[in-house]
């Protein structure tokens, strides 16, 4: 489909199916249907049922294994160090953009696993930084030559979902200026000099996902799933589109029906159509699935 920049998306577009199902609260899945003649974007979904132990603790060793297998699959390498050497040069200054939201932060074990492989790729530890809300004042991020974008997947009040695209909102000094029209402008942040062209890998943590908003801080333990997965790729739009669909399927599985997001994640579609950041059409995304298959949904 085509869309001019001034096109107003309404509920009727969803009903017609002219806005892709990645935007949630829409018609049935288009996953699995072939898109003829179109190049597909590859994302890797890897899951391990032992990623969280019986005490609810995330197993660092398993996370490392999942990350390594996922990145190897994504890059077509057998050895994780060689795979990371494709992503990162020893001379790079690497910012790992994480997410510290109190209720569902990026798992520390995942951050550690990334740091280990960046070091293995030859980057001195002093040239690696992990940050979220302080990125604009962090010397590593200010001088970074490479970024790794990693955060958990969750629903979000204003933007529909919090995924890879939204994770860069801390690279602007006034984040709430990007909240208009269901956060549609979020994709524009990726064209700012501090981040433009620097992102080598996007990782959406699906170890735990929050699939529905409720509660004082839009967090309710009842609506958190232990999905025990990672979604890996270099297209943040494709990862978020798949993530959005997953959250929709998790709501359907939990409630027996879909319940709308606070706002449909229009920003994913706009990041594709307007900012040309990646692919939001699920028909054009190939999900390579590895590992544990129970309850995959996708």
């Amino acid at each position, binding site marked *: 489909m085509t869309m001019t920049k001034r096109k*107003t*998306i*309404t*509920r*009727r577009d*969803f*009903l*017609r199916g002219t806005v892709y199902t990645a935007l949630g*609260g829409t018609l049935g899945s288009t996953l699995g249907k072939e898109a003829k003649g179109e190049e597909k974007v590859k994302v890797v979904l890897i899951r391990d049922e032992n990623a969280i132990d019986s005490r609810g603790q995330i197993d660092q060793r398993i996370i490392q294994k999942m990350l390594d297998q996922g990145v190897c699959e994504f890059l077509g390498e057998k050895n994780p160090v060689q795979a990371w050497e494709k992503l990162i040069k020893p001379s790079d200054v690497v910012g790992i953009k994480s997410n510290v*939201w109190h209720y569902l932060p990026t798992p520390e074990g995942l951050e550690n696993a990334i740091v280990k492989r960046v070091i293995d790729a030859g980057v001195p530890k002093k040239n690696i930084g992990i940050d979220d809300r302080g990125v604009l004042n962090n010397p590593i991020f200010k001088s970074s030559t490479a970024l790794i974008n990693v955060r958990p997947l969750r629903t*979000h*009040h*204003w933007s529909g979902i919090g995924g890879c695209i939204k994770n860069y909102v801390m690279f602007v000094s006034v984040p*709430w200026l990007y*909240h208009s*029209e*269901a956060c*549609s402008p979020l994709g524009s942040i990726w064209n700012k000099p501090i981040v433009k062209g620097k992102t080598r890998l996007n990782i959406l943590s699906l170890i735990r996902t929050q699939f529905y908003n*409720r*509660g*004082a*801080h*839009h967090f*309710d*333990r*009842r609506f958190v799933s232990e999905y025990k997965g990672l979604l890996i790729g270099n297209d943040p739009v494709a990862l978020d589109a798949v993530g959005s669909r997953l959250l929709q399927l998790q709501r359907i599985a939990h409630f027996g029906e879909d319940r*709308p*997001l*606070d*706002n*449909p994640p*229009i920003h994913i579609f706009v990041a594709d159509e307007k900012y040309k950041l990646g692919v939001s059409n699920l028909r054009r995304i190939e999900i390579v699935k590895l590992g544990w298959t129970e309850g995959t949904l996708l």
Partner: protein
Amino acid sequence: MKKLLPLVVEDYRADKKDEFYNRDQSFRYMDGAAELYRAYAFKLLMVRKYVKRGHPSILVEFFDMGNSEDAFGIFSYQTEDEEVGVGQGSDYGGGLLRFWRGKYFANVYAEQDTPSMRNDVLKIGHVISEKVKRKGQKPSLIRFLPSEGLSERSIRYFHLHQVLNHHYFISHQNILHLGERTNGILATYPQQQTKEKNFLLLLQYPSKKLAETAFQSFVKAYMPDAIDSRAIKTENGKWASMKIYQQYLLIVFDASSEEKAGELIKATLRGLEGK
């Protein structure tokens, strides 16, 4: 506000580290969640923790919402769980009690959701609500809603299109020209036989002129194919219909027929005309 929150509730004591956040500071406490409260006339948030030896602490977030209509509005945002008889309206689920009374809205919750913690959370909620002596009025728009078939607990009150979109997505753009000075109600009318739902959107603008502008904008963006009839069969096979009356807009979504949509519009108009 401090006077409304007791220092002691049975075995629980305030930990004396109260925090206060005004409208502009609320992001420091709630990050993105603050925007929901700021979509209403929220003025001040007081946060107090109640502690009891050997028990998880209980947190109270007590909001001065500026007026009772907006206290009801923020409460009406989510009413999916159990009404537990606290304040003028309450909702308990997952360890969280939400209630409103007067111009105040409160979240009361514990880290654990056990039967005993539920009792403690409700007890603290009751004590606080009883401290608020003056009851508040619900939004006046509610009285215009046709009562037949209305799901009372589904009534949502709001000002901004983002909040409307949470309840019923219309457009990512503000095609109804909603703002701080507009008042809106979304009401649900479940159909007993089909289990389908009709939605009635009732909007009040500051002036006839602004209502007319919003009316034209909505027709152009949402139902350009219904210029004459003001009713349209949408792509889900249901009917949408709209009407402007003075500074009010009435829109029905998802009616099973044009007649059903018209009946709901007419019933609402009767209420408005008799006001």
